[in-house]
Structures are given as structure tokens and as C-alpha cells.
């Protein structure tokens, strides 16, 4: 009986809580090896898109490849910064820079090697995409990637314009 109650609790809790909208203070690394905070990217005139990914995650790479193809068109009409935060650990962190350059991705790449930021933002599975408005609030998020999700991101960014 206790078992069922606990499982029920797991299913019910999310229904009664509201999305959090603050960013934690935590530092991640830039590709140049510097400590940076995602708060450093907040500005008065730009929204932030954050996408958690890894080199070995197929849907993540598909999502970032699709967005890279339309990135120039998007930046012409919208003001945003795109942070692609890799959660690759030691097994593959070294590949991140080569892969990003080799694929000609236009994003700002950050490294969250021991998944501290991922954990602080309560991300359980990747890809997980957030949109942060100019005030630093999370206004949109999506877990997983299905082809076409990128247009949802586009629509949300258009609303923030």
C-alpha cells in the first residue's frame, strides 16, 4: 500500500507545482577553459536559448544540426544568444571542440563536465531546451527532440521580440 502511495505521489507532485524561473549562480567552462556563469549572458536586449546536449546523444545532435541550418535566417529577424551546454564527461569532452568546429555549428559552447548546472536546473534527460527572457526568467522549455521542435523554439522567440 505504501508503495502505491509513493508512486502516486511521484505522479501527482508535478501537477501542483509551478515552473521555477530563476537561474543558479553556478559556473561552467567555456571552450577556452574559462569559468563562466550563464548569468553573464543576460542582457537587456537579447533572449537566451539554452540547450543541454552531448556528443553521443543522437536527438541532441539532430536538433543542433537542424537549428544550425536555419540559424542565419533566425538571427536576421530575432535577437538571441544560443548556448549549447555539453554535458559530455571525460570520455568525450575533448571531442566537443573538434565536433563543433567540424560541423560548423554557430553556437556559444559551454562545458558542464560533472553535470553541476544540469543538476541545478533539474534536467534529468537530454536534450532539454530552455528559453530565458531578458529578465532572466525561464519562459519556455522542452524535453526531448522530435523533428519540428525547432519551430516551436522559433515561435517562442518571436513572441519575445
Amino acid at each position: 500500500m505504501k508503495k502505491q502511495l509513493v508512486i502516486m505521489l511521484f505522479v501527482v507532485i508535478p501537477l501542483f507545482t509551478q515552473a521555477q524561473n530563476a537561474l543558479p549562480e553556478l559556473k561552467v567552462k567555456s571552450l577556452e577553459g574559462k569559468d563562466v556563469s550563464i548569468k553573464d549572458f543576460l542582457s537587456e536586449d537579447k533572449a537566451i536559448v539554452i540547450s543541454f546536449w552531448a556528443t553521443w546523444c543522437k536527438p541532441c545532435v539532430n536538433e543542433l544540426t537542424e537549428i544550425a541550418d536555419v540559424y542565419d535566417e533566425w538571427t536576421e529577424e530575432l535577437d538571441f544568444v544560443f548556448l549549447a551546454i555539453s554535458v559530455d564527461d571525460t570520455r568525450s569532452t575533448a571531442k566537443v571542440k573538434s565536433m563543433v568546429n567540424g560541423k560548423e555549428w554557430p553556437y556559444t559552447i559551454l562545458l558542464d563536465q560533472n553535470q553541476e548546472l544540469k543538476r541545478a536546473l533539474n534536467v534529468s534527460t537530454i536534450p532539454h531546451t530552455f528559453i530565458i527572457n531578458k529578465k532572466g526568467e525561464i519562459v519556455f522549455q522542452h524535453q526531448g527532440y522530435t523533428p519540428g521542435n525547432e519551430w516551436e523554439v522559433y515561435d517562442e522567440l518571436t513572441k519575445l521580440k
Partner: protein
Amino acid sequence: MFMKILSCILFLLILSSSVKAQKTGILSGSVESNNVRYSKDEKTGALVPDDKFGSNNYLKLDYLWGNISAGLQYEGYFPSIIGYSNQLDGSKITNRYLSYTSSQLNVTVGHFYEQFGSGLIYRTYEERSLGINTAMDGVNASFTPVDFFKIKGVWGRQRTYMETGESNIRGGDVNLGIQELLHLSFKVDLGASWVNKHEDYTGPEEDFPKSVDSYAYRVQIEAGNFSLYSEYVDKGIDPSIANGFRREKGEAFLLNTGYSQKGLGINLTLRRIENMDLRSEREATGEVAMINYLPALTRQHKYALALLHPYGASVAGEIGGQLDIYYSIKKGSALGGKYGTKLHFNFAQFNNLKEGQWASPGDDVLFSDLSFDLTKKWTSKFRSVISYVNQSYNKGKIEGGSDEIIKSDIIIGDLQYKFNRKAALRGEVQHLWTKQDELNWVMGLLEFSYAPKWTVFASDMFNYGETDIHYFNVGGSYSYRSTRLALGYARNREGLQCVGGICRFVPAYTGFNLSLTTRF
């Protein structure tokens, strides 16, 4: 005593900062629930436990209040799913912490995750899909007085399944930025770490090493297109079950080098490890009480048949490396087409060690993997990935029990067609040829998705060489914002499941699965 003093300091910090902190805090969290209902399957001889259900659940809550955060993780296994340790059982609050973060100082009391260097000497982490959580319960502090110097410390005891281990671990790490110090035009960082563990010993041997000290030294260079990372670990004498009570020191050497420019990325990694299993419990085996992190440095494949024979690092001794080349053929060129073409080449090989010759590989190839991928977008609606993989898996040396070497060739085609901005169809065809083990395999998958919410898929992996067993998998998922619900029915093959090069053995099982993940 030390712990008490630290708790006091932390409490004072909380008081002093609360004055300028926000008026109200923010609660956030996540829920993950994975459930299986097993069914009888005579074809694979899958085990059906008495209790036909398996259920792994995680609830995480964090409260952020200015510079202060506090949180907990509750885990419930009712009982744990097949393949996870049966010591993951019942439910409790497994992790809890209180922490203070500012730009210079970071202190956590309670459970924490931390990494020194590349983790060769110390890394505590969580990997739910393998049932790994090596968090330490104690104190973690890091201090950055000037931007080119950082010092970190950890002390406490390690989580072992649902309990806390009995040995004490402490460690320190310093990082020094030479670029800032000498005003260089490129980045050079030097670092050093120390880790000590002390575990009581009540056995008969008089000079048994109860206290084990290990040291690591590293350098990182980022100069324009070039990057280099190297680390060396000197591990103390640490006889344990995992290393067969070996009375010798351990050693690890890692070298990563890379060159990249727009459209081209090259990466070469070399690593030699010997007697590097480092755990907080002398008696521990399996996925528990690891202090350091030793992933296999081979390609992490994304397709099922290329994952049929996965490699986990041979921590007792291995030497080898891997090379990656990423290349983009320009848009508009003859081969590049309108959207460009992406190429990826990878080669990885690890051998046993050669007695007396530090830098030479031994005569046995433990694992080798060569792969080549071509990704091309043909039109705005259609894209394809073609992949070739050649693997050699030394089953005898890796799993023991035979001297079989499985040599396989795999060809993979992955095609995707987008009907419009929402609907897409994806298909995979894979074939594996081998003259060893269970001989040939074929695999097919079809997936239809309707963005942003719906996906349905069906796949079948068929061994037509020997067993004639179909490993089917059908399912679907629904995602809305931060919530995802997935439902499926699958026949799972007995084998190693690996994430990040750390593997666990999963017996065959068949059944319905339901999983829910959400964050709030």
C-alpha cells in the same frame, strides 16, 4: 570537530548573506519514474521474478534563496528493475545538502558531487541509467581568491547504494592559471590533486595499507586552434578485491590533443592505465564506491548493432588511444550540395600492457573500432546518415571463459523525411556480419513523430545467424514542455549496458515499460 566548525561557519555565512538575499526563495525539482512489468518469454529464457514489477523512482527538490541553496533527493525502488543491484531496495532520502555560493567561495555540507582534473583520480557523480551514485556525504569547499588561482577540498564518506560507507576520504585540488600570471597570449593551466582514503583493517597482516594516498598532476593548454590536456596519476598501494589484493602502486597517464578550424576538427587521445581501480570500500565490486572515473576511450555509438559488443576500460591494465576527424564539405560545392555534407572518422584501439616496456602495447588487442559516417541533407525535407563500422572484440580477454575474438562489419543507413514542420518519418536499417559468436544480425526501425508532442516507433533486431530470436521494441512517447511520458513493450537481450564507457550486466527480460520524467 572540524565538521562542526565548518557547519558553524556556513551558518554564519547564511545569516550574513540573508540580509541582502531575495525576499522569497524558489522551489524547483524533478521527478523520474521508470516502471517495468515483466512477462514470461520462453524464447529468450528471460527471468520473471516472483514480483512481476520493477520500479525505480527519483524525486529531487532544491530550494534556492539568494546565495543559499538546500535540497534533497529521495529514491524509491519497489523493487529495483532487473539489471540494477538488488542492494538498491526500498526507499529513503538518499541525498541532502545545504550550500552557499558566491563568486569566490562555494561551500556545501551534506551530499555533493565533485571532480578533480579529468576525474582520473577523483570524480563523484550520478548515472541513474546504470544505478550509479557515488556522492560523498561531508563537506566540499572551493575558493577562488584571484581569478588565476582556485583551491578545492573534499572530505567525508561515500554513498554505497542506499547506505553510507565506513571509510573516510579527503582530498584537495589546486589550479593555477599561468596565462594571467605571466600575461601570455594563450591559456596554460597547471593543476595538482591529492586524495587519501582511510579504511579500518582487522585482518591478520601487520603492514596492511589502511591509508592510501594518490596524487595527480595536470596541464592544459588552449592556444587558438590547438588544445592539449595531459594528466598523470600516481596511486598508492591499495590491495582490494577488485584488484585481486595487488600489493603494487597504480598509475595512469592521459594525453588529449586537438586541432580545429571552421569545417575541420581533429582529436587524438592516448591513455595508459595500470592497477587503477580505486574504491572507498576494499570489499566492493560492481558499480559502487568508485572514487575515480575510468571510462573507455572509444567511440560512444548511437546505433544498436554497433553497441552489441561494447567495451569498458580494463582498469587492471590497458594502453591505447583514439583518433577522431570531423569534416564538413562546403555548401554549394559538387560534393557538398546545397546543404553541405558532414563526415566523421573514428579509430580506437586498446591493448593489454607489455611487461617491462612502459610505452609499448602488449600483444593482445582487447578492442578495436573503426567507423566512418557520412551525413547529408539532400533537400529541406530529406536527410540521410550512412555509416560503416568495423569492430574487433576480444571476448576471451574481456569476459573470460574462452579465447574467442569477435570480428564484425556493420553497415547502417538512417533516413529521415519531413512531411511538414510537424510530421516526420525516420527509418533505420542495420546489418552486422560476423563469423563468430551468434553470427549475423539485422535490424530495422521505423519512427513517426508529430512535433512537438508525439512519437511512435517499432523496431526489430533479428539474429538470423544462430538463435533466430527477434528482439522487438514498440512504443511511443508524449512530451509537453518539461514533462515526458513514454510507454513501450520490448524484449531485451542479455548483455552489457554501457553509459560513458562504464558498463553493467543486464540479464534478458521482456515486458511493458512506462516512464515519466518531469521538472518543475
